């Protein structure tokens, strides 16, 4: 074991030392290699319905969220107050004190999803799709709550509990065990496919996208420098945490990230209050843009696609990752974790993403034609012109610092921390998928962790385009498989739901406080 550890460390050091020798052009090489080797996968996932520009995968997610919303009778609205009561611990048995609480499961899952999607992703969506994208994003967030409810209930119900007291859960387990229970075929095949996509997603959206945008943000503050430098530093810290077991870094991050999230929302609120007179106008833009497109790239369909895409990428509803995070909670009723998890897309998308979008719109980052009121496109016609030509995280940064100059530094720290906590979460999701495929074992786990660290460097070095495309594609591929399983298993969730609600009504399930 010691030997493999040393070998892995040596490999990482060699990698870190050879990189500078290859000089600046490494960024470009990585980029080209990356675009060439993943292009086919990206174009398959995002291929539009024949004769339209609407990607089938976006339709797939939205249809699923709608189906779950209707099938469970608008559970996201009906169960909302009960979800809050569960998180507050009103229904927690005091004898279970010391176990993982609903709040802790939710907070950990949130720190995996609240991140760059909320800051950079929204800026990309609004930059391309215009203010109207916000409307579709909120709608997708609200619907996504039902998808999350379904997958997290199943995640807890079919988790594995080991003799040493640890638990492992996630779509891999409900696909195998749940399908067996219902006598359905192919559960194992779905589980393997999901695990493969989950590993790719962990390398993509959970890793490279994070490293990439963290670098962009740091470079934005301190000036431009090669991406691999950020990559190597990040990789070293991630390596220390996930391989070296340096828990202190991880636990510090876990404690700071929620406060950063709160600080972010509060700052956004202050900026909105300072511009209170424009809030009505901003919502007008959002609604008008949602149906007319206001002249953005791709018109109204462009706004819709961007909104749906960013919501899905940000809150991961239907993707299956949350089912892994939520499955460690201590509860006798799996459905309670479903209720708790439906708050996640709400906080992530409906609250935090909307804040970002509103700040970008209200601070006037998007350039519109003063005569027609339509937005002006950039030279390539691919996105809306912004005041300083910013995109992604730089656009959000510009929007926030137009009110508070110092906020770009806070945002830089927040982005780095969000990126880091998301990486740690995804390294865990990826590892769970990896051990599902290859079995548990120190060496096998180490191989995954080292590859994970290498991808951090690649992600930071590649330019935004190819990385963001691949990140999206890998994460959406998880949803393809996961949603098939959710359709197959949703009657089980319905049975759990009805039984629970009946017992709640008859006071068999009691409040403890």
């Amino acid at each position: 074991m010691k030997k493999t550890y040393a070998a892995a460390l040596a490999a990482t050091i060699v990698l870190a030392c050879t990189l500078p020798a290859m000089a600046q052009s490494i960024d470009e090489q990585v980029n080209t290699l990356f675009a060439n080797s993943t292009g086919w996968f990206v174009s398959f996932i995002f291929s539009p319905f024949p004769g339209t520009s609407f990607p089938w995968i976006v339709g797939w997610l939205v249809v699923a969220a709608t189906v779950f919303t209707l099938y469970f009778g608008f559970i996201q609205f009906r169960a909302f107050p009960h979800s809050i009561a569960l998180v507050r611990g009103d229904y927690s048995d005091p004898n279970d004190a010391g176990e993982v609480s609903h709040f802790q499961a939710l907070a950990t899952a949130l720190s995996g999803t609240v991140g760059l999607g909320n800051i950079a992703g929204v800026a990309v969506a609004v930059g391309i799709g215009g203010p109207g994208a916000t409307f579709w994003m909120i709608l997708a967030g609200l619907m996504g709550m039902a998808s999350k409810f379904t997958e997290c209930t199943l995640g807890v119900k079919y988790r594995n509990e080991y003799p040493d007291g640890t638990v492992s859960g996630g779509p891999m387990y409900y696909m195998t065990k749940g399908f067996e229970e219902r006598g359905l075929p192919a559960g194992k095949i779905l589980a393997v496919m999901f695990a493969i996509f989950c590993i790719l997603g962990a390398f993509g959206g959970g890793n490279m996208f994070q490293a990439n945008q963290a670098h962009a943000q740091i470079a934005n503050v301190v000036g431009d420098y090669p991406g691999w430098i950020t990559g190597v530093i990040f990789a070293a810290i991630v390596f220390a945490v996930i391989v070296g077991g340096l828990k202190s870094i991880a636990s510090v991050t876990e404690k700071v990230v929620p406060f950063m999230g709160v600080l972010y929302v509060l700052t956004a609120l202050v900026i909105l209050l300072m511009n209170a007179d424009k809030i009505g106008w901003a919502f007008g833009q959002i609604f008008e843009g949602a149906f007319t497109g206001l002249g953005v790239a791709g018109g109204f369909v462009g706004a819709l696609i961007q909104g749906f895409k960013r919501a899905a990428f940000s809150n991961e509803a239907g993707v299956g990752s949350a089912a892994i995070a939520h499955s460690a909670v201590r509860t006798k009723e799996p459905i309670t974790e479903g209720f708790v998890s439906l708050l996640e897309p709400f906080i992530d998308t409906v609250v935090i993403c909307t804040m970002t979008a509103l700040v970008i719109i209200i601070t006037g980052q998007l350039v519109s034609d003063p005569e027609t009121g339509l937005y002006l496109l950039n030279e390539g016609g691919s996105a809306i012109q912004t005041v300083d030509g910013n995109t992604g995280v730089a656009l959000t940064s510009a929007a926030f610092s137009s009110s508070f100059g110092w906020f770009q530094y806070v945002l830089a720290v927040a982005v780095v921390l969000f990126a880091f906590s998301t990486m740690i979460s995804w390294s865990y999701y990826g590892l769970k998928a990896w051990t599902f495929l290859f079995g548990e074992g120190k060496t096998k786990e180490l191989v995954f962790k080292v590859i994970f660290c290498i991808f951090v460097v690649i992600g930071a070095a590649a330019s935004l385009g190819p990385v963001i495309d691949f990140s999206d594609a890998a994460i959406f591929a998880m949803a393809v498989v996961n949603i098939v399983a959710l359709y197959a298993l949703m009657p089980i969730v319905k049975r759990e739901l009805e039984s629970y609600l009946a017992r709640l009504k008859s006071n068999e399930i009691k409040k403890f406080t």
Partner: protein
Amino acid sequence: MKKKIVVGYDGSSASGNALDFAVNLAKASQSGLVVAHILEWSPYTFLTPTELEERHARRTEELERAKSAVLDPVMQKLSDSGIEAASELRYGHIAETLIKVAEADDVEQLVIGRTGHSQLSSRIFGSVAGSLAQASPVPVTIVP
């Protein structure tokens, strides 16, 4: 029913003083004795996914350690000297959980030790003794 005295015990010398005091008190008033050990814990802390996964196993370990390292020796000592006592091992906010223990019908008073925090730290973080003095449902004796 026999009235009980609850004593907060965490293995420190201050809590040892509290225990001695409570033993004498229980003897004098013919009351029962409950030795309560509370493990500081909050349901609102933030954990990493790996900590989440291992939490149940850790909790089992922590409970065993608390029992074998803190409660068992003191219970043994008490029974050796012929004193009957019950024990209570719980997770939670220390003052709040002691109050919950004290809320049982037959508890007549609480005895706790004083750890002697500086003025400043107890001003910032509050002290168990201070919170109990304010919120306890039964009389509290604080033993220096």
